[in-house]
């Protein structure tokens, strides 16, 4: 497992330079609540045909900052982005809420102390 730090502003450039469709398998978008309104966002990749090669791009952010969408680079990322919109109450452009949660469900359940 390799972890590479990035920021939300340089995310599209970093992943655009890194990602090749025939080499990397995009796993998922992930969020981890760090407490005090902070969140760690992760974009996780694995390499085809190579043992134990997992690359995680991560960025530290807060809940107010909008997250850029990587759907233009990786079309299958929309599911993961819709999931973090629901689970953390983030805003990602182009991703609507309501993948899992209903009108009367607990809002952004994975945000700390919710």
């Amino acid at each position, binding site marked *: 497992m390799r972890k590479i730090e990035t920021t939300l502003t340089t995310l599209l450039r970093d992943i655009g330079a890194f990602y090749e469709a025939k080499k990397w398998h*995009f*796993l998922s978008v992930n969020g*981890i609540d760090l407490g005090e309104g902070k969140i760690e966002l992760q974009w996780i990749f*694995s390499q085809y045909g190579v*043992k134990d090669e*997992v690359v995680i791009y991560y960025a530290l952010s807060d809940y107010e900052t909008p997250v850029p969408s990587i759907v233009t680079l990786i*079309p*299958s990322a929309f599911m993961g982005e819709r999931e973090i919109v629901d689970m953390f109450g983030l805003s990602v452009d182009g991703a609507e809420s309501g993948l899992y949660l209903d009108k009367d469900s607990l809002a952004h359940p994975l945000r700390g102390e919710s």
Partner: protein
Amino acid sequence: MKKTIQIPLGSQHISLLEPIRFKFECENEKIIGVDADVGFVHRGVELACTRSFEFKQVGYVVARVCGLCAITHSLSYTLAVEKLLGYVANDRIKYLRMLMVELDRIHSHMLCLAHTAENAGFEALFMQIMGDRELIMDVQEAISGNRVQFDYISIGGVNRDLTPELVAMIHKNLGVLTSKIDALIGLFDNNWSLSLKYKGVGVLRLEDAYTYNALGPLARAAGLATDVRAETSDFPYEDIGYKMILESSGDIHARNFLRLREIVNSITMCQNIVNNLPVGEIQEKAKGKPNGEAVVRVEAPRGELFYLVRGSGQNMLDRVRIKTPTFSAIPAMIEVFKGAEYADAPAILASFDPCMSCTAK
């Protein structure tokens, strides 16, 4: 005038085991747009894993994410926690865990084949495959005590050992199953009405498999060589006769055929495991509290299952991230539906072997 019509499928439908709703945008019989609603079974397991249960209990909770691949869920979670505890299981534990995972793969693939046959209108074949599947269910029940939710794997080992009677039973049942699978391979390849329903229907092209990050049998049937069993070193899969199986045409027939060939490979692996079982304890002490971050990938019957576990030396974990195979496969599924006939939709859907309980968690 609007040229297209919308036809819904689900959330309750005879061809669906689980609730999922598709909205097909159809032009005459052709599907041109698909909208999927997958959240019907969202329960909130990820939050409960960090709030309601201690890390020693979570292995049994995540097994309830999905009944079909329960063993891979508890295995991935256990592996992640063992990595954080700095514990490496001995060879006997590894072999017993692999045995259950491969048995689970056999029964899950057979259920999918039966279901695809039923959705193509071949009721008798459904009954036949479901009947043969009981051979594996009996073995699983004898080994673990349960038919579906095994709760076989615990942190530091496995909960039950193999006895000589069990080994004899495994050999007997797997031997019977081998001949039945051989007959099924002939049937799926040569039966005329099955080929009408399956061949050239629901094609996923190799480029699309790369673009939409297909995985598991869906990707391998399109010729994309990806299998977590070959891409991780947690288990000695090469030693027990693992072969990667690939098809090239990417249609329903290829997916079914790939599953049949994987069953044959899994039977060989199970026999090798039982024949070469190392000696050792089945339960060892794994001490401490999980601290740090670990990722684990395990090949579930439907593809890659991914766990990310983060702990900070407490009894409660900070984060358990579950990324399930069907969740990642949905973009590719939507792509396959476009351009297909509406009448084929149930058979195509069953051939993906979707698991909504996994997807929604």
